[in-house]
């Protein structure tokens, strides 16, 4: 009899534990970085947006540098031309 009561108590305990944990909300995962800075006003928001243009534009202009490597993209072919002969051939 005592064993039955103990078994029921254990089953009830496990059931209660599972029920509580199932209902507990899972920790929320934020996809955006935590924003600890204080909220900015409309003026600052507008100005920051306007300033962001120049930084983004500057980054885009850096892509022009690809021309340097393009100019010399025939380097290997020119080297090959200069190495066309082998003394042992003659």
């Amino acid at each position: 009899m005592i064993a039955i009561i103990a078994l029921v108590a254990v089953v009830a305990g496990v059931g209660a534990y599972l029920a509580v944990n199932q209902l507990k909300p899972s920790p929320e995962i934020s996809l955006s970085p935590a924003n600890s800075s204080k909220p900015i006003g409309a003026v600052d928001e507008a100005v920051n947006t306007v300033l962001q243009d120049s930084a983004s534009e500057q980054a885009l202009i850096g892509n022009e540098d690809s021309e340097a490597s393009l100019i010399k993209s025939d380097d290997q072919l020119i080297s090959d031309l200069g190495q066309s002969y082998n003394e042992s051939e003659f």
Partner: protein
Amino acid sequence: MKVNSKQTIVLAAIISVFPLAILAAQETPGKAQEAFCNRLTAAASRLEERISERYTKIEQKKSEKGTNFQTGRQARSDKLIAARDSWDSKRAEQIAKLEAKAQTDSQKQAVAAFKEAVSAAVSARRLAVDNAITAFRTGVDQLAEQRKIALETLTANYRSEVSAALQKAKTSCASGTAAVTVRETLITELKAARDKFNTGRQEVDKIGPAVEELAKTRNQAVAAAVESYKAAIEQARVDLKAAFGTNE
């Protein structure tokens, strides 16, 4: 007598063989020369063919490069235009918010002044940036053209010198010049052509630092434009805050 007979036979054999030995001695170098000349002609053909193939590849690359320059520039210009359009929209949204927020005449005037100041600053910055890009591209075009002409001269001279050296060797060979001499002369002349080509090549390669210098000038111009822009926008922020209060 028996010994004398043997001596006579040996002597006769020597005498009979001697002219053959002389003939063989004369024919062997001739055949060797002929064989060398044949090998030389074949090797010369292979070399000329190889040079021709490599030259063709350089020409193909030249054409491909021209196309890539144009498509690359167009793509970058298009991307910049699209980005600017996007930034214009975001800026307009922000200014609309400010306009909605402005309650007093003073605030409304401040927003209008801000809008005008930003617009002028953006235009000035874009003009400076566009000019910097144009100057960079024009400079690169000039350097690329100089390099192209220099390389054309260099490769044409190399081909011509190699061809002349080969022709000279073949003629020399056919006229009976010793194979060793023909070979040494040819190797010396080919090496001279290659050394000259490589020296010229080093001159042509100086384009690298020249392009870097152009990029540096461009970056300095852009950085100066951005600094002026930031200063103008910061001043506009101060003026706007004066109307809206520092908490805004």
